C-alpha cells in the first residue's frame, strides 16, 4: 500500500478504507525493511502500537489524525528518548514534550520514531552522528550517498516512504539542504515562527524548526500546525498563523522574483545552474516578472555564520557537563577532571571543533574582532534582503551547490563541508523563511533542489510559488 500524501491518507481514513492500526503496521514493516539506511536513532514497534490506541480515541476532525510523522532526534519527546545524536545524551529520557511535537501529538499524529542527525545538528551530511551515518535512500547499491544534514534522517525518512512528514531544524540550511539531497520538500519558516521550547539548542539566534514532506501542500498543512506563539520562548513570534494550506494559490501573475547574481558561484555544477534556469523560465511563463538583483554581502555569509553559530553553540552546550543528566566519564579525580573527561568522551569531533571555535571567538581580545564584527556583518546581510524585498516578492536560488555526494567524500575537510551551506546560510542569518523543493535531476538521476526565499512571515508567498513550480514535475 502506498500513500502519496497526507491528504491522500486522510481521505482513505475518512472513507474507512484503512484503519489507524493498518497505517501503523504498514509503516512499521517499511521501516524494518529499510533498517540498513540507519535513518532512525529510536524506533520501537511497541511505542507505535501504544500510540495507535491513543489516536483511535481522538475525534476525527484532528488534522493529523493517524498521519505517520518522523521526529528529528533533537526535539525532546516525553515518550521516546532524545539523544541529539550524541553520546553525551545517549540515554536521556526527557520528562517533557517540545512545543512543536506536542502540537503534532495534539493533532493526532503518529510518531514512527526519532530520526538521525548530525550530532547536535552540527554538520551537512548526517555523518557526525554518534549513531553512525544515515544513507540517502536514493543511493545506488554500490555508491552510498549522504542524505545531507543536519536533518538527514528526517529527509531520508520522507524520501524512503517511512512517514508522510517529518520535523527538522534548520540553523544554516539543515532542512533545506537535506530536502534537496533527498528530493523532498523542506521548509524553514521565519525565525521565531515555531517555538524552540524543547529543542536541544545549537545556535539560539538561528535555530528554527520546520518540516519535510512529499509535496508543498503537505508542508503547508504541517507548518500551520506546528507554528504559533509560545510564552516559554522569548524569541517566539506573536503573529497570527494563516491557514497556509487553504490559502494555497499557484497564480504568479505579476509577482516579482529576484535572481541574485551572487548565487552564481564557482564550483556549482552546470546541472544545478541549468535547473535554476529552467525554473526561471517556468516562472516567467506563469506570468512572474524576473528581476536580476544583487545581495552584495552574500560572500561574507559563510564566515559570519561560522563565527556566530559556534559562539552560541559553545555556550549552549556548556550544560552538558556530566553533573545533572546524560553521560558522565567514570574515572574523574576532580571536578575539572570530570568536565574534561566527560566532554572529551561525550562529544564527537565536529562538536568539539565548533565549541573550540566558539570559545575562541568569544574570548577576551578576540571578541570584537570576531563576534562583534560578525554581528555587524549579519546586520548588513539582513539589510541586503530588506532592500531587495522592497521591490521583489520572492528570491529564487539553487538550494545547494551540488547533488547528494558520496558518504565519506567531505568527511575530513570541514571547509568543503561548510561550503554546502553557501546558499542557505544567508537566509538563516537574516531570519527569513526559505523552502527547498525538488526541481529536476542530474545526469545520474539524483534530485536537485531550488530554493524560494521571502520576507519575514511571508511563508504563504513561498508556499504559493513552490506550489506553482511543483506542478512542472507532476
Amino acid at each position: 500500500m502506498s500513500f502519496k500524501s497526507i491528504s491522500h491518507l486522510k481521505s482513505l481514513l475518512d472513507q474507512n478504507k484503512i484503519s489507524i492500526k493498518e497505517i501503523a503496521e504498514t509503516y512499521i514493516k517499511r521501516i524494518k525493511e529499510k533498517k540498513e539506511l540507519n535513518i532512525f536513532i529510536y524506533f520501537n514497534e511497541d511505542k507505535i502500537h501504544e500510540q495507535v490506541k491513543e489516536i483511535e480515541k481522538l475525534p476525527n476532525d484532528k488534522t493529523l489524525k493517524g498521519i505517520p510523522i518522523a521526529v528529528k532526534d533533537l526535539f525532546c519527546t516525553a515518550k521516546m528518548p532524545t539523544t541529539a545524536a550524541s553520546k553525551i545524551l545517549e540515554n536521556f529520557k526527557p520528562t517533557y514534550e517540545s512545543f512543536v511535537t506536542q502540537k503534532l501529538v495534539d493533532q493526532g499524529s503518529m510518531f514512527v520514531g526519532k530520526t538521525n542527525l548530525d550530532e547536535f545538528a552540527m554538520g551537512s551530511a548526517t555523518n557526525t552522528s554518534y549513531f553512525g551515518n544515515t544513507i540517502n535512500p536514493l543511493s545506488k547499491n554500490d555508491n552510498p550517498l549522504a542524505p545531507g544534514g543536519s536533518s538527514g534522517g528526517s529527509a531520508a525518512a520522507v524520501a524512503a516512504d517511512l512517514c508522510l512528514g517529518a520535523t527538522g531544524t534548520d540553523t544554516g540550511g539543515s532542512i533545506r539542504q537535506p530536502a534537496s539531497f533527498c528530493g523532498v520538500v523542506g521548509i524553514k519558516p521565519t525565525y521565531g515562527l515555531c517555538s524552540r521550547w524543547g529543542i536541544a539548542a545549537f545556535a539560539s539566534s538561528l535555530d528554527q524548526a520546520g518540516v519535510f514532506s512529499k509535496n508543498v501542500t503537505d508542508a503547508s498543512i504541517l507548518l500551520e500546525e506546528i507554528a504559533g506563539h509560545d510564552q516559554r520562548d522569548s524569541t517566539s513570534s506573536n503573529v497570527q498563523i494563516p491557514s497556509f494550506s487553504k490559502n494555497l494559490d499557484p497564480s504568479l501573475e505579476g509577482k516579482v522574483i529576484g535572481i541574485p547574481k551572487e548565487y552564481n558561484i564557482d564550483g556549482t555544477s552546470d546541472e544545478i545552474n541549468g535547473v535554476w534556469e529552467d525554473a526561471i523560465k517556468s516562472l516567467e511563463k506563469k506570468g512572474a516578472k524576473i528581476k536580476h538583483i544583487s545581495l552584495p554581502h552574500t560572500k561574507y555569509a559563510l564566515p559570519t555564520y561560522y563565527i556566530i553559530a559556534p559562539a552560541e553553540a559553545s555556550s549552549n552546550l556548556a550544560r552538558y557537563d556530566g553533573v545533572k543528566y546524560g553521560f558522565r566519564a567514570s574515572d574523574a579525580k576532580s571536578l575539572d577532571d570530570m568536565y574534561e573527561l566527560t566532554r572529551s568522551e561525550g562529544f564527537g569531533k565536529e562538536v568539539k571543533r565548533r565549541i573550540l571555535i566558539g570559545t575562541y571567538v568569544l574570548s577576551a581580545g578576540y571578541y570584537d574582532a570576531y563576534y562583534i564584527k560578525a554581528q555587524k556583518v549579519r546586520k548588513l546581510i539582513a539589510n541586503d534582503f530588506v532592500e531587495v524585498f522592497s521591490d521583489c516578492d520572492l528570491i529564487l536560488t539553487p538550494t545547494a551547490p551540488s547533488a547528494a555526494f558520496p558518504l565519506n567524500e567531505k568527511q575530513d575537510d570541514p571547509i568543503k563541508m561548510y561550503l554546502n551551506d553557501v546558499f542557505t546560510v544567508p537566509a538563516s542569518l537574516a531570519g527569513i523563511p526559505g523552502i527547498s523543493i525538488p526541481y529536476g535531476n542530474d545526469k545520474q538521476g539524483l534530485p536537485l533542489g531550488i530554493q524560494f526565499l521571502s520576507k519575514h512571515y511571508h511563508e504563504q508567498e513561498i508556499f504559493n510559488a513552490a506550489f506553482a513550480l511543483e506542478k512542472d514535475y507532476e
Partner: protein
Amino acid sequence: MSNLIKGKKYEWETVIGLEIHAQVKSNSKLFSNSSTAFGSKPNSQVSLVDAAMPGMLPVINKYCIEQAVKTGIGLKAKINNYSVFDRKNYFYADLPQGYQISQYKYPIVGEGKVIIDFKDGSSKDIRIVRLHLEQDAGKSLHDQNPKKTYVDLNRSGVALMEIVSEPDIRSADEAGLYISKIRSILMYLGTCDGNMQEGSLRADVNISVRKPGYEYGTRCEIKNLNSIKFIKQAINYESQRQVEVLEEGGVIEQNTLLFNTSTGKTRPMRSKEEAHDYRYFPDPDLLPLEIDQEEINKLKKTIPELPDDRKKRYVEDYNLSNYDASVLTADKLVSDYFDNIIKSDKTLKESSKIVVNWLTSELFSLLNEKNIEINNSPITPENLGRLVKLIKEDIISGKIAKDVLVEMFNTKEDPEKIIERKGLKQVTNTSEIEIIVEEVLEENKKMVEQYLSGKDKLLGFFVGQSMQKSKGKANPKILNEILKSKLSKKH
C-alpha cells in the same frame, strides 16, 4: 574625621568600593516560575529551566524587573530604557547552564547615589555606578558525604541585584554605614528582605590603600561577605595587611580573596593570572529588555517614603538632630513605630525628642534583652505615647515611668491601669511634700548645719532622702522648690 591608617612610616588612606548582591524579593525566580522560599528541602524548588534541561529557555519574570527599577529609583539612579541580558560563561557544579545570565554592557540601572550619615551630624555621598540583574547559582554541599559533593539547585536562578559603588568609601565604618543604608532603602522599598544571615544580602569588597593624594593602589577583592561585622573586620585586616606589605617595600598583587571568619584573616582564592575569561555575550535566548518611560513613571508612583525623605521630615517637623533622625529611620519598622506614636496624639509632636529617647533607649533595651523585633513589641506605639504624655503632664516621674514601662512590657497593660493599680501617681500636693521635707530635715540636723555652712552639694542628699520617703512619687520639681525654700528659711 580622619580615616587615615598610621603605618610605621607613612599615613595611608583606604579606598573601598562595594559590590552588593541583593536577592530580589519575589515569589518566583528571575527566569522561571519556581519558588524562592528559603530553607526548603534540597532540590524541591527546581524547574526544568533551573536545572538547564536540553531545550529549556529562560523567560523574564516581569515582577523582578519592576523590583529592580524600583530599587533604581530608590537609589536616585538613572533607569535605562534599554538593557541587555548577557551570558557569563564558566563551569561549576552548581551552575547548571554552564553560564550565568547577567547584565554586562547594558545594565538596567545606571548612575545613582546614596547618602551616609555620621554621628557628628555630617553626611557623605557614595556614588553608585550601576545596578544590574543576574541569576544566583545553586549550592555545592561538600559536607554531606566524605567522598561526594552534592548540589542543591533551589537557589539556582533566583534573581539578584548587583549594586556596584564607586570607590568612594574610605573606612570600614563608612562601608558599614553604606551597606546599612542600602539595606535600609531596599527594605523600605520592599525589593529585598535584607536578611543577611540567610544570604539575601551579601557583598564583595574591593579594597586598596594609597598615600593621601596619590593615585589608587592595586586593589584586591574580598568575596562573599554576609555580615556588616565581617565586612568591617575584613576591611580592617586587609587594609592593614596591604599597608604592611607596601611599607616593607613589597607590591600588592591583584588577587581575589576569601575572608576567614574564625581567624579574621583574608587569604587568596585566585590570582589575576587564574582569573576566568567569562566570554560575555548577549544571551540569544532573550530579547533586549525595553522599558518605556510611562512604565517607569507608574512605578515611581508606588515608591514609599524612603529613609532620606523621612529623615528630612523628622528634622524639619520634629526638630530632631540629623543623626537621631538617621538612626531612627535606618530601620523602617522602628521608624514606622515612631510615626505611629506621634500620630496617636497630636500633643506628642512637641515632645518628639522625649519620644525618641523612650523608644531608642528604654524600649530598645527591653526588646534587645528578650530578643524581640519591634514589630512584635508587647507595648503598642499608642501605649508608649500615653506613657510619655503621663510623664509630660507630671502624672508620674521619669523614674517611675521606667518601672511602668517594664510592667507594660510584661503585662501588655495600659500605663494608666498600672499606675492606678500600683498607686504610682505622682504626689503634687505641696502640703504632703512639705511634711516629708520637714521630716527629712528634722532627721538630718547635722547635715542641715553643714549645708548652711556652705556645703551646697548636700541638697542632692536631701532630695534623695525625701524622694525615698515619698516612694519616688513626689514631683521632683515641687520637691526641689520646697526644699530650697525651707532651707533658706533656716538661715
